[in-house]
């Protein structure tokens, strides 16, 4: 019998929570505001590495490093958003994908700062003591719930309605006198900085940072979770993560005893099944499990 909250279980649950938060933030960007962000791993990874570097290389106090790391991500998101947000969705997709590739490349090349493929470590937990990992899990839980509550409140607020209007008909919203570019830029900066925050908090979860954490699989996992759960619903990210990442990364990897030959196949099989699921959902339930079969009628 395995202890429910063994060290590995805490690690997996923390990872799952980070994905729930990322998927909910992506719901805000894509589901609510219609911004196609395929650079999720870039913002997350930048937050993670910036925090690790500020903490370990520059010896800054824990929470100063955390705040500075999030500020760096916000600044980068602001510049990238200024460049890409008024482009069409294809250009947005490629530009954000390119941004994530640039971050992964730079983390690999700038060995003097990131230690490259050797790895940067060890990032300590925020609180010491025997239960330090549990404390981190609790912080992640509180913050993740905070993001979901924020998503729910925002959907009903005037700013949320403005974002939905931009998504559905930006020209109309602009002609009604709304500064749509500004609204998108503020919102993109804020939500991407959120991804950076969860990246920074992933650093102590991972403890040891290597460039291979920044592969395209992260962005893809977040997207599949959101699409499966339902992109238009604040709880869509949570449901999607429970059905995909929770099953594979928590239930199977923590509790299923698999022969070691299989252990290498499971991550590959996982990504293949994610792909198949994404295709099936978009063909048969384009608005996710929480969504209707048809497009919800707009009230605008």
């Amino acid at each position: 019998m395995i202890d429910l909250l063994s060290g590995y279980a805490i690690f997996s649950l923390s990872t799952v929570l980070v994905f729930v938060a990322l998927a909910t933030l992506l719901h805000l960007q894509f589901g609510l505001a219609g911004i196609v962000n395929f650079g999720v791993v870039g913002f997350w990874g930048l937050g993670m590495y910036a925090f690790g570097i500020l903490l370990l290389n520059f010896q800054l106090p824990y929470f100063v490093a955390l705040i500075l790391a999030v500020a760096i991500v916000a600044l980068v998101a602001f510049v990238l958003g200024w460049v890409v947000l008024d482009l069409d969705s294809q250009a947005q997709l490629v530009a954000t994908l390119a941004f994530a590739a640039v971050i992964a490349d730079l983390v690999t090349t700038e060995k003097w700062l990131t230690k490259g493929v050797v790895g940067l470590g060890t990032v300590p937990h925020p609180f010491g003591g025997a239960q330090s990992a549990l404390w981190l899990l609790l912080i992640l839980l509180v913050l993740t719930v905070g993001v979901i509550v924020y998503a729910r409140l925002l959907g009903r607020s005037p700013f949320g309605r403005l974002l939905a209007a931009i998504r559905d008909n930006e020209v109309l919203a602009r002609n009604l006198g709304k500064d749509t570019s500004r609204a998108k830029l503020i919102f993109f900066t804020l939500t991407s900085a959120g991804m950076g925050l969860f990246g920074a908090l992933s650093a102590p979860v991972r403890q040891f940072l290597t460039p291979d954490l920044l592969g395209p699989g992260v962005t893809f996992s977040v997207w599949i979770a959101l699409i499966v759960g339902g992109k238009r619903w604040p709880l869509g990210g949570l449901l999607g993560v429970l059905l995909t990442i929770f099953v594979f990364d928590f239930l199977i990897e923590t509790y299923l005893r698999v022969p070691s030959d299989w252990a290498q196949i499971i991550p590959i099989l996982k990504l293949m099944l994610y792909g198949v699921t994404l295709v099936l959902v978009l063909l048969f339930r384009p608005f996710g499990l929480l969504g209707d079969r048809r497009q919800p009628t707009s009230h605008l």
Partner: protein
Amino acid sequence: MSVVTSALVLGLIEAAPLVLAAMGFTLIYYLNGFTNVAFAENITFGAFFAVIFTSILGLDFYLSIIPASLLSGAVSVLTYLCIFRPALRRGVGPTEMIILSVGLSFALRYGARLIFGGDLYYFDTVSPEYYAFLGVGVTSFQITALVLVAVLASLLYVFIYRTRYGEMMRALANNEELALASGINPTLVSVLIWFIAGVAGGLAGVFFGVFSFVNTLVGWNLILIVIMISIIGGVGSIRGALIASVVVGIVTSSISLVATPLYGEVLLLVLFIAFLKIRQMRARA
């Protein structure tokens, strides 16, 4: 002077697979109006088909190109008929089509990974002969690839801009209802275009593979550059894709002459993002 000629010669060699991939990718975009990220797997599959024919079945490399490219075309048609056509008919929007194609791309890539593993494959070919061309060392494969690509690209160009089927395709892409009213069979033309695009993608994979190696990430590593090229060339423009891929090939090889590969990629991607912004600002002005 020698730097300029090396950049030109190496750039053209670098561009050879890119030209085919970009033209194939752009054909699909032009006809159906969405970014097909799963085109990456078309490139990968082409390379693997050729590996199977040469290494496992012992066929001559040049001979194996033919069945490998035909099979890639068939795979492309299959993805169209089984996935993309039903999705288009269900009214899936352009953004969702991109995500759908990303899903298919992952399904195919990791499916291939289950079969072939993460190893690098090399073509079993006789060792190439080396020549000096404008002071730059090139192999016989690279010259053959360059000539073949030039011939194929010209054929494709003539097909699209000078033949009846090319005309039908352009009619269908520009005004579907008018094209249907003129008695054009949309399924036939679409299947033909997806087949040609698949052949072009598969060939791109083969040439890319013979220059370096083949693994299941070949197409994914190339697709970002291919989509970039199609955007720079003006989305849906076959002529633009042709010119842009040659330009990007030369720019890439020029960068790689002075910087390490990863810095080259960073510089190229940053240049591309800047290009998008400048074009948008000029369009507004």
